[in-house]
């Protein structure tokens, strides 16, 4: 007994250690305190976030990954961003842009074998052409664009983002930004008319360019009287100085950082960073704290480690059906609980950072569906102790987190909510209920998949397992009906509150209604004796199709109030998923003598008796 406990504690400790391991790696490339630099708060897209988030999301959009592998090693997102902001000559040589479309390559006059990776420097002679092509392509309706048109628009957007990043702190190619600022402070006599301040026309123009082009807002508000959200871009802040004579200390701090980095002077860089961090800590302690939490969250990537662990759990739990059911089943369950805790920590951290209920966009719905399904799976495993709850939960946990990972490719997953969605009350009730409805419908569907796969392909589905699976599916379908029905009606009430109509037959509303109807059909068909154990399973698998349609399919129609844009890349995956589910339904309908498990058609139950059974 004691030994078992010890082993369990060791497993738990090792799992947690695995989860926090990324924090233990200290990134100090060339002696620069990049990790600390990444915690500096800036404003972008209406949200104050650490520079690290800006770096990761930008690199993700431009390069498709959160790190960049050079020939000699791996650059972290922050290492890369530092170069883009402060040492552009180096950054322009990094081959970070990916082009896979041969037509795009041809349009640029490059051979198809010219390699997939290109640096910004290589694009410079072609910028005008690319802009022209992209402008032409943008005139075509988004859904009618050819692959080349989509690719060239994407390329243009990436190049624009890169260009804006480069001109966020200093004008690209500036050698000594600190010196420039010092000169400016010495020679300028602030005047309401900028031209009268003694600045040259050329210098004024470059400040205006910086104010216009810069991507993020690096300079905090003037403490403590300024509007707390009135952050400024570097250029804007310098223009304020020209007219008002107020120079924000952060301008000097950033200038020192930029010049020290340019001159490869780590000691000066670190001490300037140290001083700036102290100033921020004094003026904006809460923002600094949140930025720190977010950058730790970025580094730990709890959803990534949970994803990996779910695979391990699935393997353990599925193996328990063949060998050592007790031991393997137990460890799978322990791991599942620990992984669920990691998943939950990630979820709660996101909620804290956003100040929102768990589901605010498609990305977070994926994270939450996985979470909900795993929670239900844990309950099932507690009751039935046969590995099925663990295995199914782990499978859904893995798949949904994988989907979330792919959805995060578009950039920041914590966007601000548009006005109509900006009500935590409804987000917390309607959206959470509907999403739990999705989660439980998927869980029922995946339990049914387990039944069909184990029954048809392995001899491991015995009578007891089959009947416990049937009870699980029935219970989860009841649960799914409750949540999807209540969630859908709450959505109607929200719509009534904000648009004045309860139901508008909008595609997303219809999608939710389909889930409710399908779950209701399953329950009534079972109560009416129209289906028995196997029919229930086949119907539950169809629930996967209905739910995937509601979750993703309707967004691909590109119409309606809930439409999140056309997701062309996800479409083949949806089709493949639907096809696979239909295939499993066919297998589920095969006569029993094709099944590997010894199954016999159960005794016919008269309809009346079935009805009474459920009462």
């Amino acid at each position, binding site marked *: 007994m004691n030994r078992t406990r010890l082993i369990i504690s060791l497993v738990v400790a090792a799992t947690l250690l695995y989860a926090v391991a990324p924090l233990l790696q200290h990134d100090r490339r060339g002696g620069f305190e990049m990790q600390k630099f990444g915690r500096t708060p800036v404003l972008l897209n209406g949200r104050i976030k650490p520079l690290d988030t800006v770096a990761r999301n930008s690199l993700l959009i431009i390069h498709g990954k959160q790190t960049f592998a050079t020939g000699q090693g791996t650059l972290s997102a922050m290492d890369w961003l530092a170069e883009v902001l402060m040492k552009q000559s180096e950054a322009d040589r990094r081959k970070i842009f990916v082009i896979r479309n041969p037509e795009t390559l041809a349009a640029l006059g490059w051979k198809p074998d010219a390699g997939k990776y290109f640096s910004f420097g290589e694009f410079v002679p072609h910028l005008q052409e690319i802009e022209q092509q992209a402008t032409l392509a943008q005139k075509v309706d988004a859904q009618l664009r050819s692959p080349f048109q989509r690719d060239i628009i994407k390329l243009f957007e990436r190049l624009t983002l890169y260009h804006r990043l480069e001109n966020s702190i200093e004008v690209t190619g500036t050698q000594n930004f600190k010196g420039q600022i010092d000169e400016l402070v010495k020679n300028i006599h602030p005047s309401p008319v900028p031209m009268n301040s003694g600045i040259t026309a050329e210098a004024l123009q470059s400040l205006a360019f910086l104010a216009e082009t810069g991507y993020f807002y690096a300079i905090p508000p003037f403490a403590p009287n300024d509007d707390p959200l009135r952050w400024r871009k570097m250029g804007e802040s310098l223009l304020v100085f020209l007219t008002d004579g107020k120079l924000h200390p952060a301008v000097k701090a950033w200038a020192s950082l930029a010049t020290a980095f340019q001159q490869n002077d780590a000691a000066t860089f670190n001490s300037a960073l140290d001083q700036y961090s102290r100033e921020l800590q004094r003026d904006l302690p809460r923002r600094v704290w949140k930025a720190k939490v977010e950058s730790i969250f970025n580094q730990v990537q709890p959803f990534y480690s949970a994803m990996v662990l779910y695979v391990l759990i699935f393997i353990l739990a599925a193996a328990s059906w063949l060998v050592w059911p007790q031991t393997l089943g137990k460890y799978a369950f322990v791991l599942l609980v620990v992984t669920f805790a990691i998943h939950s920590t990630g979820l709660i951290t996101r909620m804290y950072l956003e100040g929102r209920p768990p589901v605010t966009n498609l990305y977070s719905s994926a994270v939450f569906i996985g979470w909900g399904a795993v929670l239900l799976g844990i309950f099932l495993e507690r009751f039935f102790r046969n590995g099925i709850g663990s295995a199914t939960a782990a499978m859904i946990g893995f798949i949904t987190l994988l989907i979330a990972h792919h959805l995060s490719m578009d950039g920041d997953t914590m966007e601000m909510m548009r006005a109509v969605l900006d009500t935590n009350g409804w987000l917390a009730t309607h959206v959470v209920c509907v999403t739990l409805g999705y989660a439980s419908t998927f869980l029922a569907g995946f339990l049914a998949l387990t039944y069909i796969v184990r029954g048809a392909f392995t001899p491991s589905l015995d009578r007891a397992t089959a009947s416990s699976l049937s009870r699980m599916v029935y219970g989860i379908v*009841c649960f799914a009906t409750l949540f999807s029905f209540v969630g859908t009606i709450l959505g109607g009430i929200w719509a009534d509150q904000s648009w004045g109509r309860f139901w508008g037959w909008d595609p997303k509303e219809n*999608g939710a209604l389909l889930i409710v109807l399908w779950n209701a059909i399953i329950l009534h068909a079972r109560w009416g004796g129209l289906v028995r154990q196997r029919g229930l399973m086949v119907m539950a698998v169809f629930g996967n199709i209905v739910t995937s349609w509601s979750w993703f399919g309707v967004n691909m129609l590109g119409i*309606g109030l809930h439409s999140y844009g056309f997701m062309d890349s996800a479409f083949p995956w949806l089709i493949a998923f639907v096809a696979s589910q239909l295939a499993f339904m066919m297998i589920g309908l095969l006569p029993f003598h094709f099944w590997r498990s010894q199954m016999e058609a159960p005794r016919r139950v008269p309809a009346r008796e079935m009805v009474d059974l459920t009462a």
Partner: protein
Amino acid sequence: MAAITSAESFFIRSPLRVLASLRLTVVCLALGMLLVFLGTLAQVHWGIHQVQARYFQSVLIYWSPPGASWRIPVLPGGYLLGTVLLINLLAAHATRFQLSKKKLGIILLHLGVILLLIGQLLTGLFARETQMRIDEGQTMGYSEAPREVELAVIDPTNPDYDQVVAVPEAVLARGGTIQNPTLPFTIKIRQFMANSQLVMRTQAPDAPPSPATQGFGKNIVATELPRTVKEDERDLSAAFIELEGVQGSLGTWLVSNAIADRQPFTVEGHTYSLVMRQRRFYKQFALTLLNFTHDRYAGTDIPKNFSSRVRLVDFERNENREVRISMNDPLRYRGYTFYQSGFDNNDKTSILQVVKNPAMLMPYIACGLVALGLLVQFSMHLFGFVKKRSR
């Protein structure tokens, strides 16, 4: 004796049993899924408004091959399915269900579904959605139907008010001649175009001569277009109207909701004017837009909130107060609900959605009943299950 019983069972019991059967429930729900799914797909081509009318607020859905003049019903529409489900549910409770504690959850839940179905039917039949576009400082005592026009004949003789005869779109579309006892002439609808394109005659020199002999219509070419299906587009309707007095025709006018100018004319020394506009619904009270605010997130164009500060004046009820209408926080007054719906004109115009729905409360009650019923039923199951496991 035996013959009577079997006849009774055949004509009364067995139809009732079919009506009350779970099979019928499953079939209706499955057809409902098909309807909802097809109704979603159809929105891509037909737009939400046409689909609503054709699929969901209809008894049958028809199909006809392109170009054919006949059509066959292929699927039951929303009204028919809803009604059959309602009857099915009522029949099931009349025959199969006994009132018992064990069935409490299901009974509550079904009662909620019944209320929901009836509520949606009533909403479909009686609710009215209109819009109010107010500029800052403007006072408005009416709202307009965004997708329906009317022809207004205005008699401005009285300095205190205008006397208006309004012809709704449904009547215009029917065509024919309209006579109203307050007008000394008849209105003949020569052509009505639900959607049209208007071009200055100078830009289309080859166009056939205009039927219009009076007003601005002489200089404009109107061409009929199919109705728009896009959510963000509006139809521009137009019509050629001929007025006929005792002495014969007074002329033909072109009217369109694209042109707000009133076209004056004189009959028997009395001046009237003619205009086509969005159909108006007058209220017993008026709203004045004091100001409109539109907040954005810092450093972005993402709207954070919009709200209208309005003054509500109602002489009948002696109301005169300031109200704030914002997203998710509407004004409810005298059976109408005013929602913040949009803005225009550089944030100087506020667009309010005005809804009158006598069945508004039903989904709220239904939701409560369904949730309660499901909760009671499933927790009875769950507790039973847990108890059985722990034994």
